[in-house]
């Protein structure tokens, strides 16, 4: 009995599924696959055995729930491609996925539970999914996808079906499900039952929506704080990013070269580092305050902490993103349209105001959107330099952490945050959606883009040059910090910190990575090397 030619892909995935079930460890191993001490562990080890061994030897019969569809789907290999085959395959795959996930959720650590009592009466329990379980799950998902394709969806294309089902399941697992689970907590009361009263009590709180700061010295509600800060950050990062992009693209200044290197630099800096660096400069014991005290005799205060410090830190951290977005937009503005305007005797200012700027506008609104979203999601900067200025992200943190562990409150605040983010998206679409800002380009579109009008160029340089100098100063300080004994106290140069972090010893056993920072460095590189190819592949 020969397997039908067109079923080769399906056959391969069936083999993968069976192999994963029979050979690979079903559960997650703490050391990974390299921790296996030998083939016997695949059968004997209680937690490291393969799925087949778990089912037969280790009294975990509920695993059959996820695996019988693999067997049930075998007959499709001998069927001709068609609707019947597709339907059988799709049903088997879907039931398999459902069964596998159900038994994963139902049976966990040994303990009481309604469903686990039914599935696992002896109380054996099970750890989390490992290589075996994941590959079987993938095989079942692929079967569902192939089944749908054969039944008529996706015009019968197996690859497209697999890609769509794969991407959708990744999104559901890592985005939709966790977000839904955490936000749903907003509607549950203390006992875990849905309750409208609990929801209303959490949302309608003075702490969130109070307007005290408008008419008194009391602080405003966190929602207003977050909104005001986000709008301010969005606007200022967009303006600054636009000026940087205009100088970089449309001027002949020599500063362009430094700009190309310095402007995107804050993107690679971790958020806490930006906040701490700014405290070293502007904090009460910071250099700027010490300078002011030495020059003018004014006692240093904590003027930097609060909304101003958070805004400055966010401006520093998020301008590069706006810069990159607007730079892309400016490069996309067709020079021939500007040339046409100038041949019709419009001056530099008129051309900029009526041709260039309107073409840039959608990009600017995108940059504002990104700045807004980054600001409301920012946690590192408000927690370090915020002082008593609270925003939604810090409130959520304090609700979850510590004795309170008030998941309901944290979920309610997170829901408000989500509504803000979605609201701004909707607003942007409403404003831009109806107009169409395409630059029609094609043959004959080469040309030199117009230089900036004089006034605009001078204004932009007045802003850009100090900003780049400021960026350079912060990074020089951050870099020098590693070479002094104790920043803020003892500025004697030393290499001791590098020795603590990166010391290496070569002895009989090989290279010994003694320093404290080697482990973090290797983990960072490993994670980056793994994520770098996967991210664009998934985005495709």
């Amino acid at each position, binding site marked *: 009995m020969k397997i039908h030619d067109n079923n080769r892909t399906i056959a391969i995935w069936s083999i993968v599924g069976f192999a994963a079930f029979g050979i690979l460890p079903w559960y997650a191993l703490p050391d990974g696959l390299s921790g296996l001490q030998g083939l016997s562990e695949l059968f004997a080890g209680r937690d490291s055995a393969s799925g087949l061994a778990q089912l037969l030897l280790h009294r975990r019969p509920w695993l059959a729930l996820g695996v019988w569809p693999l067997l049930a789907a075998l007959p499709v290999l001998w069927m001709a491609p068609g609707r019947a085959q597709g339907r059988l395959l799709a049903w088997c795959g879907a039931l398999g996925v459902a069964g596998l996930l159900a038994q994963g959720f139902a049976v966990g650590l040994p303990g009481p539970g309604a469903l686990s009592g039914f599935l696992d009466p002896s109380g054996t329990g099970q750890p989390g999914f490992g290589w075996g379980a994941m590959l079987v799950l993938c095989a079942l998902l692929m079967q569902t996808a192939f089944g749908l394709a054969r039944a008529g969806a996706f015009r019968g294309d197996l690859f497209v079906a697999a890609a769509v089902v794969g991407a959708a399941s990744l999104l559901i697992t890592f985005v939709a499900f966790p977000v839904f689970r955490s936000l749903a907590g907003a509607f549950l009361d203390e006992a875990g039952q849905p309750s409208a009263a609990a929801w209303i009590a959490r949302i309608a709180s003075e702490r969130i929506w109070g307007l005290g700061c408008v008419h008194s010295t009391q602080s405003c509600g966190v929602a207003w704080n977050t909104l005001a800060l986000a709008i301010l950050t969005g606007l200022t990062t967009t303006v600054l990013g636009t000026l940087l992009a205009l100088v970089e693209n449309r001027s002949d200044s020599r500063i362009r070269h430094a700009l190309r290197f310095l402007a995107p630099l804050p993107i690679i800096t971790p958020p806490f580092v930006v906040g701490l660096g700014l405290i070293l400069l502007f904090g009460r014991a910071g250099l700027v305050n010490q300078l002011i005290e030495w020059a003018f005799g004014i006692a240093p205060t904590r003027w930097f902490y609060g909304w101003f410090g958070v805004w400055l830190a966010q401006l520093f951290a998020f301008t590069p993103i706006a810069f990159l977005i607007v730079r892309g937009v400016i490069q996309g503005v067709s020079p021939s349209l500007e040339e046409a305007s100038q041949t019709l005797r419009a001056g530099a200012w008129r051309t900029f105001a009526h041709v260039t700027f309107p073409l840039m506008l959608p990009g600017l609104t995108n940059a504002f959107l990104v700045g807004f979203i980054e600001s409301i999601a920012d946690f590192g900067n408000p927690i370090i330099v915020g002082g008593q200025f609270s925003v939604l992200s810090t409130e959520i943190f304090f609700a979850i952490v510590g*004795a*309170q562990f008030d998941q309901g409150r944290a979920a309610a605040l997170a829901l408000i945050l989500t509504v803000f983010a979605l609201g701004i998206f909707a607003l942007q679409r409403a404003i831009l959606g109806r107009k169409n800002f395409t630059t029609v380009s094609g043959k004959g579109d080469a040309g030199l883009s117009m230089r900036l009008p004089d006034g605009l160029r001078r204004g932009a340089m007045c802003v850009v040059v100090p900003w780049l100098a400021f960026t350079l100063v912060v990074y020089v300080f951050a870099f020098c910090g590693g070479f002094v004994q104790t920043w803020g106290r003892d500025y004697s140069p030393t290499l001791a910190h590098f020795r603590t972090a990166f010391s290496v010893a070569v002895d009989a056993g090989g290279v010994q990575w003694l320093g404290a920072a080697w482990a973090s460095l290797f983990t960072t590189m490993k994670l980056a090397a793994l994520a770098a190819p996967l991210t664009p592949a998934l985005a495709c």
Partner: protein
Amino acid sequence: MKKRNAVASLALALTAYFPAAHAQGTGQLNVVCSVQDEWCSLMSTTFARSAGIKVNVLKRGSGEALAQLLTERSNPKTDVWFGGTGDPHLQAAEQDLTLSYKSPSLPQLHPWAQAQAEQSQWRTVGVYSGPLGFAFNTELLAKKKLPAPKCWKDLLAPALRGEIQVANPASSGTAYTMIATLVQLMGEDQAFAYMKGLHQNVSQYARSGTGPIKAASRGETTVSISFVHDAPSEQMQGFPIETATPCEGTGAEIGSMSIIKGARNLENAKKFYEWALTPAAQQLAAAAHQYQLPANKSAALDSHIPDFRKIKLIAYDYAKYGRSAERKRLIERWEREVNSLPR
């Protein structure tokens, strides 16, 4: 050109796997560590070397560690929770997150450490103790011509407006110890009236318990309410910081250790637990410049460790104030009555 790039990127990806070739010992251990960085590293590297077990350390404040344990309770990734003030450990025990384990070394410990274990049905044990107090920047005080604070009531002085930092009780065990101490010292209503007055002088409620003392050392604030044993490591770096314990009386924390229920590496966790209670391991704290009082009676006492006989300690009721409901009630009351006030 393309081949060279491919080879280069492959080589880069492979370098990330180099350290995987480490000594194959007898398994692993996952520790959540809520004490100072240096002490955590010293404990984990010393234990790893002596027992031949690979130790994975996660450094978390005690409040954050508790939140993590609560959320991963159905699939715990941690084996041992070492350090951090006692109240979160007692909460974890109440929530059935930790394993009941009666160590044979218990009789070697001070009575307060044994009481901590007994009170939680052996789910946790005391490993160190340290008194709460004030830390102040001597240079800033001299510049402002202010006297050093010696009593709780000194902190209410209007001259100290905006000059005090303490941690946020929601996330920090240190700050909760302060609330519980004041409640036991003055009575609940008086204590909250005091904290409302203190709120006027507080510039910021920091995220972690050690944040305020670091800020005071670096001159970002003048006075911080912290554990006094956090000061010597700052003093050794050359910062002008001094400490005092309040004249009316103060409380002390009992740093604790627990084994997590459902730990994957239970045997290794028990080995670590036993080792951490030995005098040698207890003395590692002093080696890391942390001067809490060790729980083991036979551990040698470093000269920097404050003499508990000279400090006025209240009779802190760990049983009552370690209970989850009481903790939640007090922190909620603080949120409602103190934190929402304007400054």
